[in-house]
């Protein structure tokens, strides 16, 4: 009963499409509310406002995830709750996109408008999707978003620093079958000006060089909706070519480093949903090709990886108060690179048994037990145990608590990179606990307010690090432990009065991520904040819509990030804001949206990674024409 209340409560919130924290929960989202865990959703409406940004920039300003970025178009990797990029899983409709080589994913190359929703699972809530996401999982959704027989959207845009982009989307079908096609092209010189205060004793104004990026993507989806069954086929091709600018502490290279990325992703999934239970099967193939060239250094690196994923799950409600679920996930990775001694393959299989119970109207609980098989080696099982309390049956207030153990197997680079890879590495182990208080208040009909606050603590043991070994080259070793703990707080207000709609979302996260004393070597900086993990992050977005006009103002604060283990050198904090103004003209079957965005409105000079300046104030003009029948 409690479980059904839990689900019904969430469903009712969903159907009302209200704002929940940073979450914009809407009908059709694939977000799963795992009992006892925090999960949020960024919907297509917010993605549309920020369609000129990358997913990395979007998350940086609209979530509690820290994005470590080398600048506009440069590598951008996510991390949250004081963990590293390798501890964040990035998925596409539940299929992991993390490179089996590096173990991380670059979010800089996907435009926000190309995705239909972003689901964020915090901490061990990620175990419902995948293993190894100590920080969490970012799940990128692509799905049909319309029931129209025919819909066509074209969205060109132009912006500062030689930015051009174009996005087209076509959707057609009926309630039985639906096709969605999307494509984008993007090109940017990124030759923004910045102040160089490191080349000379006095500041110099310069333009960023060797910073060009061009990318393209294409997605085709086909969905077949049958009674109680859904069959989906998806294909995603993406390519990017970019120059890699030097850090400003180095002279500009006459022959810059370059990188080309190309990815093919395909999946077929089948879901069966009956009263007696749910069943799902997914088969996916993800192929990545990365070419890195450094001509002066005579480095020509070719890296190809392929990952075949098979997923299956069956969930059955076995009694009024108990449901059981079994999931099998198999991931076969194949890597060919001139950086390993030959090709490498690896298989990781996981079997999950999940039990959910709701014995009382105010209480529900979930237990997940996971067994991992790494090639032919059986690993110590992982688990998560989570509970949820609803102290007042007449209020949408929830207390969530969880404990968990999660494992991350070493990346293939950690194991096989030549030189220095270490095939004998142990898994990293993460144990975590978290507590969330979640309140939604319906103050008056159109005035709603939601607050949530979470305290968390993660303990990562056998952390894999690269350090110089005995023969003058670096090698991967299990070294040391890390404790990260912190508080996340979110506030969301929505208010409607006649034609005026007002939304305000704010989030704040305080993270302490420190080395734990494990051996004599790092004992002296025990307790210091880890490098590049900000202690404080905050953001808020204010959105107002009046008749056919809309506006949004957002601000993002990132605290200081230390650059050295003893915290003696750091990057100062930064505060950046952006504004978006738009208007919409609608006809019977046509609509035209025009919007202008100004990012870094107050022209703040800041760096996300030392010696890689970020762009100052920049403008982007976007026009979206839509035909809908």
């Amino acid at each position: 009963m409690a479980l059904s209340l839990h689900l019904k409560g969430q469903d009712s919130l969903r159907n009302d499409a209200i704002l929940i924290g940073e979450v914009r929960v809407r009908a059709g989202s694939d977000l799963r509310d795992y009992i006892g865990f925090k999960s949020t959703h960024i919907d297509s409406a917010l993605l549309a406002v920020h369609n000129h940004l990358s997913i990395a920039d979007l998350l940086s300003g609209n979530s509690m995830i820290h994005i470590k970025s080398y600048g506009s178009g440069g590598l951008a990797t996510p991390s949250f709750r004081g963990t590293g990029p390798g501890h964040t899983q990035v998925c596409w409709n539940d299929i992991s996109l993390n490179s089996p080589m590096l173990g991380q994913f670059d979010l800089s190359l996907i435009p926000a408008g190309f995705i239909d929703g972003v689901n964020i699972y915090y901490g061990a809530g990620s175990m419902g999707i995948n293993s190894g996401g100590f920080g969490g999982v970012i799940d990128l959704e692509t799905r049909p978003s319309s029931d129209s027989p025919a819909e066509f959207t074209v969205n060109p845009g132009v912006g500062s620093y030689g930015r051009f982009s174009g996005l087209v989307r076509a959707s057609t079908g009926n309630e039985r079958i639906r096709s969605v096609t999307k494509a984008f092209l993007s090109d940017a010189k990124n030759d923004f000006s910045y102040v160089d205060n490191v080349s000379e004793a006095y500041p110099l104004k310069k333009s960023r060089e060797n910073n060009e990026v061009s990318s393209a993507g294409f997605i085709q989806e086909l969905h077949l909706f049958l009674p109680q069954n859904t069959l989906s086929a998806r294909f995603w091709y993406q390519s990017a070519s970019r120059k890699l600018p030097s850090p400003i502490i180095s002279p500009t290279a006459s022959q810059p480093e370059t990188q080309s990325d190309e990815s093919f992703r395909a999946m077929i999934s089948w879901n069966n949903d009956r009263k007696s239970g749910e069943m799902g099967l997914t088969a996916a193939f993800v192929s990545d090709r990365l070419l890195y060239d450094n001509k002066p250094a005579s480095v020509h690196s070719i890296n190809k990886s392929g990952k075949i994923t098979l997923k299956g799950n069956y969930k059955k409600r076995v009694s009024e108060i108990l449901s059981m679920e079994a999931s099998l996930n198999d991931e076969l990775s194949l890597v060919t690179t001139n950086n390993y001694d030959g090709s490498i393959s690896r298989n990781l299989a996981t079997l999950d048994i999940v039990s959910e119970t709701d014995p009382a109207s105010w209480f529900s609980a979930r237990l997940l037990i996971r067994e991992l098989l790494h090639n032919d080696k059986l690993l110590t099982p992982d688990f998560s145990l989570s509970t949820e309390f609803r102290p007042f049956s007449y209020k949408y207030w929830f207390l969530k608590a969880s404990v968990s153990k999660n494992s991350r197997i070493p990346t293939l680079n950690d194991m096989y990179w030549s030189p220095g890879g270490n095939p004998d590495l142990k898994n990293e182990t993460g144990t975590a606990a978290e507590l969330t208080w979640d309140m939604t208040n319906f103050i008056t009909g159109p005035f709603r307010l939601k607050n949530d606050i979470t305290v968390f603590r993660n303990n990562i043991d056998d952390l894999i690090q690269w350090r110089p070994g005995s023969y003058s080259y670096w090698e991967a070793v299990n070294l040391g432990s890390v404790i990260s703990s912190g508080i996340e707080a979110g506030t969301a207000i929505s208010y409607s009065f006649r034609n005026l709609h007002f939304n305000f979302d704010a989030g704040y996260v305080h993270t302490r991520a420190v080395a734990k004393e494990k051996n004599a070597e790092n004992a002296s900086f025990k307790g210091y904040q880890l490098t590049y993990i900000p202690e404080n992050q905050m953001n808020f977005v204010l959105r107002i819509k009046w008749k056919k006009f809309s506006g949004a103002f957002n601000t993002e604060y990132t605290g200081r990030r230390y650059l050295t283990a003893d915290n003696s050198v750091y990057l100062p904090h930064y505060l950046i804001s952006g504004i978006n103004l738009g208007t919409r003209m609608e006809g019977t079957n046509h609509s035209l949206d025009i919007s202008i965005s100004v990012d870094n409105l107050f022209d703040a000079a800041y760096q996300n990674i030392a010696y890689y300046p970020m762009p100052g104030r920049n403008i982007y003009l976007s026009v979206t024409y839509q035909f809908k029948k």
Partner: protein
Amino acid sequence: MNTIKLLLFVPLVLLASCIKETDPVVTGLERTWLLGNGVFIMNEGNFRSGNGSVSFFSYDSMKIYNSVFREANDRPLGDVPYSMGFSDNKAYILVNNSNKIEVAGINTMKTVATIGKVVSPRYISFVSGKKAYVTSLYSDSLRIIDLLSETATGYIPLKHTSESIASTSSNAYVASWSGGNSIFVIDIINDKVTDSLEVGVEPESMVIDRNKTLWVLCNGGWKREHYAELVAINTFTNAIIKRFTFPLISDSPTCLQIDGTGQYLYYLHDGVRRMDINAASLPSAVLIPQSAYFFYRMGINPYNGEIFVTDARDYIQKGVVLRYSPTGDFLSSMEADIIPGNMFFKSATYKSY
């Protein structure tokens, strides 16, 4: 509602409290100490982090001063400062991953020039008062530096990468370290390769002794498929005259140095080892055991014979410089910066073989 208000305003209050921020604190420097005798220590910093620096140990104050370049010039030095050379009262700091050479006053560390257009510079050798050669970890040629204009002016193609370099009055000897096994002989008048000598695998470091014999330490390569070797070459005939092979294939000696008399060789191999240039075999005993340390780089003060060794600890936090007497007695230790590496000894009467 009070709770709700509190939750609303906490982020804003925290934001306001976080706005004030100051610049990073840099260790202070009493610049007058730079005038005296001392040791420059290249702190490599973390790769691609741009936090390399130079420390200076002063014999006059018996203290170490960190970040002396930054302090003198109010700007960071760069990414992976690797080595240094002295010429005409100027210090040439080779900043490996910043692809540049910073030229600074030897007694002030005040910048004089920045030499660009060098790829991954490793070591410099001043072959005349007007010209220097710079080796490169990645480039397949040797860079020629014009010391009068402080610019890179030409190349000497090697078709190999290069590491250590040592010069006599007529030739420069360049080791092809990474994956190589050759020593190239360069005519310093014509800037031409005149000869090449096959030595052991991965010649890592070289010195010239009092008899003008070139000693080459070959560490055998990281894959441990070859034995490490110490090779002696007569620089008058360019012929190999001695060859010592290390006993175990796992032996990986590094950092060959020579004392101020040119009589004793030093290298790191499970500690500091010393060898007379006339010895008939490799030393079996360790002069300075590593004990609880992990020796990373070594330098021998040519003026007083003191032995300096660095321990980079975990390569993340600040490393340590250890100072020993010529006989191996511990004298003092000092904290440098991140990954203290090569060391260069300063005196008004700087000398080299």
